[in-house]
């Protein structure tokens, strides 16, 4: 494993600081994951990935770069992986989910910026994340003001390409997004030196659709009254899926789904029957952000679904691969991606409908709507989310938090009280 140190050194990483990060990870992984009883055997794969999170996958990416392939770092589920894969590029997620990176971000950003943005900028500038060092180019998008401005700062340090996400969902906005995708394809061709052809794009669409289907199979298993997997484990699977090779990701998710379906047949549940089922909704939980799930699941409830970018917003809806021209395929991509009900859109009734639908599909007893501090978009939407749920008679708890540990006690009190309320 000493070879990783060499690799990190070659990546220009700050080894001393990185070591501090390596010291806290095992404690958190132990407390959050290893303390659970009866985890699915197939979680082995994700246990290995998280144990070697800055080792195995970065080494793979570097090997591919040696063969001339380019790595694209992305921050949002709106950036179409299909286009990058069609040009033989590689996609890696880059969102920062650790408090460790926040001070580095605060050095250059206002403190009242969301922790995800602060951590992402801190991870780059602090040189403590190999993925941020490896990516040849970053692809940003205009889903919030904080990101838009943070990308300008990141752009001074690394090549940056921005996609302009529409803020409304009129037919002309979908056409506009298609044009953004077409422009992006030209950029990707320029960076990779490879053409995006109809055949290659169709193949890429199929690869990503298979990944989406596999993730959905795991989520579908969570709908069962007999809950075969904890929310923490499912969240880890989703978080890692942003970093992994999509075909391996699909294979591993399908392997996990096989086991979960078998557990359901055999009546194997990870919680006692009657445990309250929670749908969480809101802003993404980037790896290694496990605080919310861990507190919920150590307060006598279980998380059964995430209506989040690290959740259903990532894999729901497939892309139609029947088009015969690039233009048709770009339009199919645009239509699929514009079905995502991110709070950046106005108006955004689709998100409320999604939450109500998911609460039913996953048999949720209650909803926890949690946003990252200083995310105005999701924070403002809490009111309409709560009203809609209340009208349906579904209890909801609205929360706001960041990456710090210091509010864990207060979160516990609120969440335990919510669970006590659900238990009657």
């Amino acid at each position, binding site marked *: 494993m000493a070879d990783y140190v060499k690799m990190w050194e070659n990546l220009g990483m700050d080894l001393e600081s990185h070591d501090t990060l390596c010291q806290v990870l095992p404690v958190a992984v132990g407390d959050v994951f290893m303390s659970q009883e009866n985890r699915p055997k197939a979680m082995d794969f994700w246990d290995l990935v998280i144990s070697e999170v800055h080792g195995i996958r970065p080494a793979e990416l570097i090997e591919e770069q040696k063969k001339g392939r380019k790595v694209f770092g992305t921050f949002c589920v709106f950036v179409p992986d299909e286009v990058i894969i069609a040009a033989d590029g590689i996609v890696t997620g880059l969102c920062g989910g*650790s408090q460790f990176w926040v001070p580095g971000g605060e050095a250059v950003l206002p403190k009242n910026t969301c922790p995800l943005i602060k951590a992402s900028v801190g991870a780059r500038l602090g040189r403590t994340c190999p993925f941020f060092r490896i990516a040849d180019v970053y692809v940003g998008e205009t889903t919030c003001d904080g990101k838009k401005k943070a990308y300008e700062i990141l752009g001074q340090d690394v090549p940056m390409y921005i996609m302009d996400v529409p803020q409304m969902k009129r037919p002309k906005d979908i056409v506009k997004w298609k044009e953004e995708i077409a422009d992006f394809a030209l950029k990707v061709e320029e960076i990779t030196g490879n053409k995006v052809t109809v055949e290659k794009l169709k193949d890429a669409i199929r690869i990503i659709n298979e990944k989406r289907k596999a993730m959905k199979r795991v989520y579908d298993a969570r709908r069962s009254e007999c809950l075969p997997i904890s929310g923490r484990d499912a969240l880890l699977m989703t978080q890692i899926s942003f970093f992994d090779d999509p075909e391996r990701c699909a294979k591993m998710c399908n392997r996990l789904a096989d086991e979960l379906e078998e557990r359901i047949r055999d009546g194997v549940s990870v919680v006692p029957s009657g445990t309250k089922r929670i749908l969480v909704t809101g802003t993404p939980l980037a790896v290694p952000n496990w605080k919310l799930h861990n507190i919920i699941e150590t307060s006598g409830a279980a998380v059964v679904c995430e209506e989040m970018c690290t959740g259903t917003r990532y894999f729901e809806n497939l892309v139609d691969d029947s088009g015969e021209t690039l233009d048709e395929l770009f339009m199919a991509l645009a239509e699929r991606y514009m079905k995502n009900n991110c709070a950046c859109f106005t108006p955004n009734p689709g998100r409320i409908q999604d939450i109500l639908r998911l609460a039913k599909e996953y048999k949720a007893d209650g909803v926890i709507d949690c946003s990252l501090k200083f995310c105005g978009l999701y924070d403002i939407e809490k009111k309409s989310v709560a009203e809609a749920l209340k009208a349906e008679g579904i209890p909801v708890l609205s929360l706001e938090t960041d990456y710090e540990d210091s509010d864990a006690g207060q979160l516990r009190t609120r969440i335990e009280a919510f669970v006590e309320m659900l238990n009657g």
Partner: protein
Amino acid sequence: MSERYYILFENYEQGLALHDLLDEAGVMNRIAPAPSAARGTLCCGMSLLVGPDMIDRAKEVISRENAVYHSIVSMENPLQPMRDRYC
């Protein structure tokens, strides 16, 4: 009472090999990041986590199969789900 054993390795290939052997022998074990206190000069990486009820059987498998590993470290109370120390 809540003692846990971590089997450490030079690299993850060794770890996965023993993981498969233990699984075959029905010895409960999980892949886990090696605790930094136990890791010493070894770098960030995987270990196998084994409970006190399984450690003797794990050692039997290791010696029977001549499995390669770095060391075995025992720790008191390493897993505290309510500790609320995240990263």
